[in-house]
C-alpha cells in the first residue's frame, strides 16, 4: 500500500491506492477543515503535493487556487487520490484551529437543588436479633437520614455486588449516593467512609461544532472548571446533514462514540484542572440539538431529515452514564433536555430557560444564528418558534475569504466613506488570513453606508478606486492588500459573497417576520431581542440592524444571551425543579414549519434587500443611510 507523508509534521500513514488524501489525513489524525463534508465544494482542504504521484483534476477545481498555488502543487485533499507514495504539505489554515468560544454566561441565580444526594451512614451491624438484609439495612439508614423510603429506591445489580464488602470493610461506615430518576430513586453509589464533599456534576452544551462543559461542585454549586473543544464528529462532516448522511452509511456507532469521546475529553480536562476524580461526577445534564442528542443516545436520527421531519423522541430523557459511553461514575445520571421538533432541540429550550423570556408578559424575540437559525418569539403566555437554513455565509462559509472565528480572522471592520479605506482588527491581532462572520456583517454595513454597494448588494464598479475592481469572476472590494495579508493573496469580498450573505440574512429576518405575523405583533411590540450563541457577542448590533439581519429595535433592547444552551444546562443541573419547567416550555411552543408557510418566500424576497424592501420598517436605519448618502454625494 502507498505511504502518504504529511508535512511539516512528517506523519506517515498507509492507505490503499485510490484513497483520497483527505481520508489519509484523517487516518493520520489531522483535523482537516472540511466545510462541505469532502465533496469538492468548499475549497477549504487545500494541500500541496510535494512529491509522489496522485490524481487530481486541477482544471475542474481551478477556481479555488491562484496560478502560483497550482504551480506549487495545490490540490483539494478530498478530491486528490493516492497513486504512489507521496509527500503532502498541509498549510496551517487547512487545519481546524483553536476557536474563540464563548463560555461566560448571564448572572442568573438558581437554587442549589440537585437531583443527587449523598447520605453518610453509620449503620448497626446485623445480629441474630436483627437479621435484616444488607440492602434493607442500607436503605433504612438512608431513610432515617432524611432520604426517600426504601421501596422507591432501585438498587442496580452492580451495586448489590459491592454492598457486602464495602459495608463490612468500612465497619458499616458508608456513604450512599441516591439520585432522583423518572419514577423514583436509584442507588448510584456506595463508598466507604464519609465522601459527602465529593459530589460533582457537569453541564454540557453539545453543539454540532463545539462542546462546552461546566464542571460544578454539587454541594456548593461552585463552578470548578469550564472547558470546550471541538465536536470530534467534525471529521465526519462539518454540518449536521452531512453527518446524518455519514451515519446512514453505517457510521452512527462511530458518530455516537465520537460525541461521547468529545464530552469525555472536555470533562476530563476540566476535572484534571480542578483536581476532581471523574468517578465523583454523579450527574451530567446535556443540552443539544435534536439530532445531536439522538446520536449521543444511540437513536437513529435518519428519518428526521426527511419529510415530515419527525424526531424519534421529544421528551426529556434520562439514562445512566455507562450506557452511552460517558466516562463519569458509570451509574451516574444523564439528563437530556427535551426537544420540540427536529430543528428546535434541547439547546433552544435551554436558551429559552436561560433568557427567562417565559417569566414575563413582555414579548421577547430570541435568535440563534449559525448555519441554521432558530427563532423564538413569545412571553409567559405563548411561544412560537421556527427554524431554517441560513446557509454558512454568516459563519464564513460560501465566502471566498470567509473563515471561522480563528486567530487571524478579521472580526471588526470600518470603512471610511470618503476615502473608502478600511480599518480592521483581527482575532489575536494576528496577520489577517480571512474574514469571520462578525467582520462580514461589518463589511456589508460599511460598504452600504459608503455607497459602494447598493441595496441589492451590487458593487458600483463605476467608482474609480483601486480597491474596487471587476475581479476574475465577480466584482470585488479589496479589504487587505496581499502585502499586508497573512496569506499570499489580496483578501477581497466579492459580489457573490455579498449575495450569499444577503440570502443568509434575508432568511433570518424573514423567519422573524413570519413569527411576528403569526403572533399578530409588530416590531414595536418587542421588548427585548436576544442573540443566543457566540455570534451575538461578537457582532456589531448597529451593523446587524443596518443590514436588516434582525427587525429594528433600539440598540439597548438587544441583549446577548451568550451560550444560552450551557447556561440552561447549568440551571437544570443545579436546580432539578427547572427540569419540570423545561417540559412545560417544550409543550407550550407552537412550532411554525417555514416550508409549509406560504408567506415565507414572500417575506424572504422582501428581506433580500438592505435592510428591507419596506424601508418604513427600519426608520432609524433609513435616516442614517440618508445622511450617509448625502455625505457621499456631497463630501
Amino acid at each position, binding site marked *: 500500500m502507498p505511504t502518504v507523508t504529511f508535512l511539516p509534521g512528517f506523519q506517515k500513514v498507509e492507505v490503499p491506492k485510490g484513497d483520497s488524501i483527505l481520508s489519509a489525513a484523517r487516518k493520520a489524525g489531522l483535523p482537516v477543515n472540511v466545510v462541505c463534508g469532502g465533496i469538492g465544494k468548499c475549497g477549504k482542504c487545500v494541500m500541496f503535493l510535494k512529491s509522489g504521484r496522485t490524481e487530481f483534476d486541477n482544471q475542474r477545481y481551478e477556481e479555488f487556487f491562484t496560478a502560483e498555488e497550482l504551480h506549487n502543487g495545490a490540490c483539494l485533499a478530498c478530491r486528490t487520490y493516492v497513486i504512489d507514495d507521496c509527500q503532502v504539505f498541509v498549510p496551517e489554515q487547512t487545519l481546524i484551529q483553536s476557536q474563540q468560544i464563548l463560555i461566560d454566561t448571564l448572572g442568573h441565580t438558581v437554587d442549589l437543588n440537585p437531583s443527587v444526594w449523598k447520605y453518610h451512614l453509620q449503620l448497626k451491624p446485623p445480629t441474630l436479633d436483627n437479621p435484616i438484609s444488607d440492602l434493607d439495612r442500607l436503605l433504612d439508614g438512608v431513610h432515617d437520614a432524611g432520604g426517600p423510603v426504601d421501596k422507591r429506591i432501585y438498587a442496580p445489580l452492580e451495586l448489590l455486588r459491592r454492598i457486602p464488602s464495602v459495608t463490612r470493610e468500612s465497619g458499616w461506615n458508608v456513604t450512599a449516593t441516591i439520585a432522583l430518576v423518572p419514577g423514583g430513586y436509584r442507588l448510584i453509589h456506595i463508598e466507604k467512609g464519609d465522601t459527602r464533599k465529593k459530589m460533582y456534576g457537569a453541564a454540557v452544551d453539545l453543539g454540532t461544532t463545539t462542546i462546552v462543559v461546566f464542571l460544578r461542585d454539587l454541594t456548593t454549586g461552585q463552578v470548578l472548571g469550564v472547558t470546550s473543544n471541538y465536536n470530534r464528529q467534525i471529521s465526519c462532516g462539518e454540518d449536521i446533514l452531512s453527518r446524518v448522511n455519514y451515519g446512514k452509511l453505517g457510521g452512527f456507532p462511530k458518530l455516537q462514540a465520537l460525541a461521547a469521546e468529545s464530552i469525555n475529553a472536555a470533562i476530563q480536562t476540566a476535572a484534571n484542572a480542578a483536581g476532581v476524580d471523574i468517578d465523583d461526577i454523579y450527574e451530567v445534564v446535556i443540552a443539544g440539538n435534536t439530532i445531536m442528542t439522538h446520536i449521543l443516545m444511540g437513536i437513529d436520527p435518519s428519518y428526521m431529515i426527511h419529510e415530515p421531519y419527525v424526531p424519534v423522541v421529544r421528551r426529556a430523557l434520562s439514562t445512566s452514564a455507562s450506557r452511552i459511553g460517558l466516562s463519569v461514575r458509570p451509574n451516574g445520571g444523564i439528563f437530556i433536555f427535551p426537544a420540540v421538533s427536529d430543528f428546535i432541540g434541547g439547546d433552544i429550550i435551554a436558551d429559552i430557560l436561560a433568557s427567562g423570556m417565559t417569566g414575563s408578559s413582555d414579548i421577547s424575540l430570541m435568535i440563534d444564528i449559525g448555519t441554521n437559525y432558530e427563532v423564538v418569539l413569545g412571553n409567559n403566555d405563548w411561544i412560537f418558534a421556527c427554524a431554517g437554513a441560513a446557509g454558512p455565509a454568516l459563519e464564513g462559509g460560501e465566502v471566498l475569504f470567509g473563515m471561522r472565528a480563528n486567530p487571524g480572522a478579521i472580526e471588526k471592520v470600518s470603512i471610511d466613506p470618503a476615502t473608502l479605506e478600511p480599518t480592521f482588527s483581527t482575532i489575536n491581532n494576528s496577520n489577517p488570513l480571512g474574514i469571520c462572520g462578525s467582520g462580514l456583517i461589518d463589511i456589508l454595513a460599511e460598504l452600504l453606508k459608503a455607497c459602494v454597494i*447598493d*441595496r*441589492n448588494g*451590487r458593487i*458600483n464598479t*463605476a467608482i474609480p478606486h483601486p480597491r474596487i475592481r471587476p475581479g476574475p469572476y465577480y466584482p470585488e472590494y479589496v479589504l487587505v492588500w496581499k502585502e499586508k495579508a497573512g496569506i499570499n493573496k489580496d483578501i477581497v469580498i466579492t459580489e457573490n459573497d455579498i449575495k450569499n450573505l444577503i440570502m443568509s440574512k434575508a432568511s433570518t429576518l424573514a423567519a422573524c417576520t413570519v413569527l411576528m405575523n403569526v403572533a399578530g405583533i409588530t416590531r414595536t411590540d418587542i421588548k427585548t431581542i436576544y442573540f443566543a450563541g457566540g455570534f451575538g457577542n461578537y457582532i456589531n448590533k448597529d451593523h446587524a440592524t443596518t443590514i436588516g439581519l434582525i427587525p429594528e429595535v433600539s440598540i439597548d433592547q438587544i441583549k446577548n444571551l451568550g451560550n444560552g444552551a450551557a447556561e440552561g444546562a447549568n440551571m437544570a443541573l443545579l436546580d432539578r425543579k427547572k427540569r419540570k419547567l423545561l417540559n412545560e416550555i417544550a409543550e407550550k411552543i407552537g412550532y411554525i414549519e417555514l416550508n409549509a408557510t406560504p408567506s415565507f418566500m*414572500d417575506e424572504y*424576497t*422582501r428581506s433580500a*434587500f438592505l435592510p428591507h*424592501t419596506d*424601508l418604513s420598517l427600519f426608520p432609524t436605519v433609513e435616516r442614517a443611510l440618508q445622511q450617509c*448618502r448625502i455625505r457621499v454625494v456631497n463630501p
Partner: protein
Amino acid sequence: MNYILPHTWSGSIQTVTIGATKQEGGTRSVSYEIGGDTDLPFMNRSGKKPLLAYEICDDTAIWPQVVRDAMPKGISDPASWAAYGEKTLKPDCIRLNLTSTRKPNSSDFASISATVQSVLAATTLPLIIEGSADPAVDSEVYIRCGEAGQGERLVLGTAEADRYRSVAAAAMAYDHIIIAQTPIDVNLAKQLNILLRETGIPDNRIIIDPYTGALGYGFEYTYSTMERIRFAALKGDDDLAMPMISAPADSLTVKEIRESDSPSEIAVSWERATAVASAIAGAAILVVRHPGTVLPLRTAIDALWEGSRREVSDGA
C-alpha cells in the same frame, strides 16, 4: 349600469409624460401623459385607455419567425419599418428594439446612433427604445440612444436589478423615461424602483415592466403581480405608484403557435388576448410585435373602454 364602488384609497399612480412635441422641446407630433389612476382599471370606468405600441427591431435574426413571416414586403431598415407602422397600423407609439446589440461582441455603436436618428426622422410618434442587455456594452449603447434622442423624452429600457446604472445614467443625462423590469414579483419591482430613485431618477420618470408571461404559460402570475402592484400603489406605497408597461412578446413563441397550421392567426389571437388581459390588470402601455395584432387590439381596447361589446370579436 352606472354605480360607484366605494373605496378609501389614498394613493394614486404617478403621471409620466412620454414623447415631446415641438412646444415641449422635441419633434414628436404628440406626447402622452400616462398614469394618474386613482382606482383599479374598470372599477369606476375612470382609467385612461392604454397606449398601443408597435415594436420593430434593427436585426430580425432573433425576431419570432411568425412575425418575420408576416412582415410586409419592401421593408429593408428600421426607418421604413417605423414609417410603415405609423402609417398603416396607427399605433400610439413605436418601440425600437435594438436587437443588433444582442449579438455576441456587438460594438457598432455608431450605427446605433444612426438607427435611432433615422427612426426618429421616419416617425412622428413617441419612441420607446429597448437597448442592450449586456453590462459590457450597456453604457455605450444607452448613451448613444440617449444622445440621439435628446429632447424627445424617449422611453428607455430596460433597467433590471443587476444592471440598471447604465440606462439610469443615460436617462438622467438626456432627460428620458426609464423602464424598470423585474421578473413577475411585486417585491422585486419595489426594490428596483428604490434602487433607481437612489441613482437620482425621479418617480415620474419610471415605468414598471412587471414582465409579461404568455397567456397559458404563467400569465396568471403576471396578472396577480400587476394587481398587487396597483393595490400597493393605491394604498399609498410610492415605490410602486408608477404606470405599467406590458410587452407580451413571449406569447409569440408558444407551442400552440409553432405547431399550428395557421400560425399567424394563432399568434395574433394569443398576443392580443395576452395584451387585453394586461390592460385589464392595469397596463398603461401595450407593446405588440405582430403587425396583425395592432388593429384588432385597438378595436378590443376601444370596445372595452367605451363599453361597446359588439365590436369585440375575433379578427374584427
